[in-house]
């Protein structure tokens, strides 16, 4: 997602720089174009939007569509903001999985396709499995969402699912995240304390 480009497109209307004049009438009651404004208002003073001359019908639609487009992008960015991959919510992390499914589905659809079996590494949705008690197992829940997406595809006819249990090397790879700690017991005259 190109956040930079999106944000520069959000409300590309010049009135954003003048919040005093930012009213809905700016968008739905079309204002004059720059050249028209010059012709109708040679003094150069900006007129209130409601009293400004209307544009032809077609230009009015363009202006309104531009507003709705901006609104859509704005909402999209808001949603994206909520779903940032900070370990808590991983909304957009599902899209790489769906892209894999889409790519494989294209191959499966080809005439005389060489694809015989698509094996997808998945996990059960633990939110459902725990009947809503645990909702933070996003690693599991995201995989379950992607699997549902796979089942809607033609590709599913050639697919199988593999759930891998807990990797035995998780403790080496992730250490303290899995709750592992190596404790050194130092003996002091007053007794033993645990550190590190």
């Amino acid at each position, binding site marked *: 997602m190109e956040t930079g480009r999106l944000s520069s497109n959000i409300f590309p209307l010049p009135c954003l720089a003048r919040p005093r004049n930012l009213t809905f009438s700016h968008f739905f009651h079309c204002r004059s174009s720059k050249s028209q404004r010059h012709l109708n208002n040679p003094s150069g003073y900006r007129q209130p939007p409601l009293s400004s001359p209307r544009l032809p019908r077609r230009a009015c639609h363009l202006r309104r569509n531009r507003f709705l487009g901006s609104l859509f992008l704005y909402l999209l960015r808001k949603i994206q903001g909520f779903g940032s991959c*900070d*370990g*808590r919510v991983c909304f957009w992390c599902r899209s790489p999985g769906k892209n894999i499914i889409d790519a494989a589905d294209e191959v499966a659809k080809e005439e005389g396709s060489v694809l*015989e*079996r698509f*094996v997808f590494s*998945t996990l*059960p949705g*633990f939110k459902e*499995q*725990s*009947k809503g*008690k*645990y*909702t*933070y*197992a*996003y*690693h*599991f829940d995201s995989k379950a969402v992607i699997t549902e997406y796979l089942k809607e595809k033609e590709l*599913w*006819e*050639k*697919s*199988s*699912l*593999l*759930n*891998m*249990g*807990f*990797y*035995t*090397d998780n*403790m080496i790879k*992730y250490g*303290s*995240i*899995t*709750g*592992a*700690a*190596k*404790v*050194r*017991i*130092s003996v002091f005259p007053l007794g033993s304390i645990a550190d590190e």
Partner: protein
Amino acid sequence: MEGGVYILSKPGKNEALHPFVVPADTGLFVGLLVRSPPKQNLLGVSEMANYIEYMKIWSEVTGVPSEVREISVQEADEASPGGIGREAAESTATSAEFGWG
């Protein structure tokens, strides 16, 4: 480390069985699925074990004594803040209490 001890703190009962899988076994499971009819849903397990057995093997291999402690999800969250600790803890807790379906 001399005089050290490994402590594994995790939610769920110590006796709860979990499906452990050795990453190198992946090919075996995929091979099985490739030779089977489609639409299978396989749980790949190298060995079902509880964390006491798991840490016993760990100690045998490393020569360092170990201990398994039961903690709450909240304690795990506080130990590794930011959500990742809670995610790992809830995964283990779900496995211990509800199984894999």
